[in-house]
């Protein structure tokens, strides 16, 4: 079983600041982390391997510093790690990124492709299903449980808004996973030792037989026309004063006027 997990290095959004002048991110002050959802994808890949055998390869597209998150994945127990790194890829949107990841998976060969449900920087959740479409694979998003899995077939539970869809698919298949699926393991001591010495394989666009007209900022369909800071100024709420009883009475009155109290 060849399992490929696509992961992403993201700015630490718990720590992100926007430059109010330019409306762009102050990336340099934020620090970077592995996209939190990707931990669950790695964990699930390791569990599939433990059950059915095979290899887990983690892939990320990004600058050389993205090796940091590949090492974390190795520390958790992934067998191999690949950094897809090429200037031609810079500025790719989801359409272009999913093409590059699909070409990488094709090059590596894969029976199951795993993704976190979305990356917390862009929040699009588009790369998993898009990559699957490039590879003409089924995509099963929002997977909260793998019920059954064999070399040929998989049955999963998907978290929809109104309940759970149970869906069966042949392999190869792409999955995006939600947090409910498992509890990611920490890096083991042995894993950390291996990660320390491990050098990820670095691939370029040419290495994955990628078409340069399909990638990069120039060939990405979507353009950012403008961006601006969305943080609102603090302290504009109308404050309700008094003791607890008076405040409850006052707020009750407001809620009643607004029609929230029947």
């Amino acid at each position: 079983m060849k399992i490929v997990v696509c992961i992403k290095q993201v700015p630490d959004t718990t720590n992100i600041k926007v430059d109010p002048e330019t409306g762009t991110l102050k990336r340099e002050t934020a620090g970077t982390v592995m996209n939190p959802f990707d931990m669950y994808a790695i964990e699930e890949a390791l569990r599939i391997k433990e059950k059915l055998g095979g290899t887990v390869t983690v892939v990320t597209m990004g600058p050389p510093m993205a090796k940091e998150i590949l090492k974390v994945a190795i520390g958790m127990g992934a067998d191999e790690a690949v950094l897809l790194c090429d200037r031609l890829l810079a500025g790719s949107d989801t359409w272009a990124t999913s093409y590059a990841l699909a070409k990488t998976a094709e090059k590596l060969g894969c029976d199951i492709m795993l993704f976190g449900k979305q990356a917390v920087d862009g929040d699009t959740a588009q790369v998993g299903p898009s990559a699957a479409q490039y590879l003409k694979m089924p995509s099963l998003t929002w997977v909260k449980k793998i019920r059954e899995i064999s070399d040929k077939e998989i049955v999963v539970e998907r978290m929809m808004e109104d309940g759970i869809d149970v869906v069966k698919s042949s392999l190869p298949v792409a999955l995006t996973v939600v947090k409910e699926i498992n509890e990611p393991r920490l890096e083991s001591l042995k894993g950390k030792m291996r990660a320390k010495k491990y050098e990820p394989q670095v691939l370029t666009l040419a290495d994955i037989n990628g078409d340069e007209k399909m990638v990069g900022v120039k060939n990405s369909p979507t353009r950012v026309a403008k961006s601006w800071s969305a943080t609102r100024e603090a302290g504009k709420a109308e404050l309700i004063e008094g003791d607890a009883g008076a405040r409850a009475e006052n707020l009750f009155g407001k809620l009643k006027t607004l029609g929230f109290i029947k």
Partner: protein
Amino acid sequence: MAELNKSEFNGVWIFAEQRRGKMHNVAFELLGKGRELADQLKVSLSAVLLGNGVTGMAQDLIAAGADKVYLVDDPKLDHFNDELYANVLADIASQYKPEIILTGATAVGRAFFPRVSILLNAGLTADCTAFELDMAERNLFQIRPAFGGSLMAKIMTPERRPQMSTARYKVFKALVKDPSRKGEIIKPQIKADSLQARSQFVEFIEEVETTINIAEADIIVSGGRGIGGGENFKLVRELAQALGGAVGASRAAVDSGWIPYSHQVGQTGKTVSPKLYIACGISGSVQHLAGMQSSDIIVAINKDPEAPIFGVAKYGIVGDLNEILPALTERIKKG
């Protein structure tokens, strides 16, 4: 890639999502916004309706603003299937060439629209909260939050058609339905290949929740770290119950094990836009605000006057939850 003749593409489409014969309300909201865009562009507004036994739902879409409904009523489309929905929508769009296609940023929309965008060689923008038009170039500006809501971005797709977006639920306003409104129902020819899939539906499990689904709720009372403990969460539940609302939570409360993840509001939980959101003991991290700041009325109750939640709230109470919540619940019960 060959130069695209943009003038071949016209018309605004929305995908009308239904599950088990029930139309998702976001479809009506998008018809409301779509009507505005179509009128401005002087083109027709169409809805695409896929399913099994759904023909009877088409008139409702016309009543809500659609000029045309592209209908594929087929037993193979009985349940949502990513491959089939994507293939069929892409098939119809390649035949009729709309300039804009929108769908709800729901579990369904966000699962299959990416596939459609690849099939159509088009771009896709996720989870938009506003749309504007550049009439000169007929470009759609797709406005969305990013980086956990700390940044807003205006996205465009200048060189590709159709322009595709998923749009946030409960942000756009549906029109008042006019049952006498007339429209055209079109049953497009679908290629046999488009109805082939390797994945298949097995069963649906309804979530047995005694609480109201927070994504659907009109009123949400949410608790955060400031609640102080799992037992204290009953203060939040009681207030929610008195108001007939749902219980939400911040990530801190969920991570502390006080309440299950299905209640989590925010970037890594659910995005909600209720009519009333009462945040109790929630400081208002960027991630939490991203999930609730489009609520109509926000009330914040917190002991820290500097908490960012007061920045998005209409009404604020700086004080002790243990006193205020029971007093408010009692007052509401008294009526």
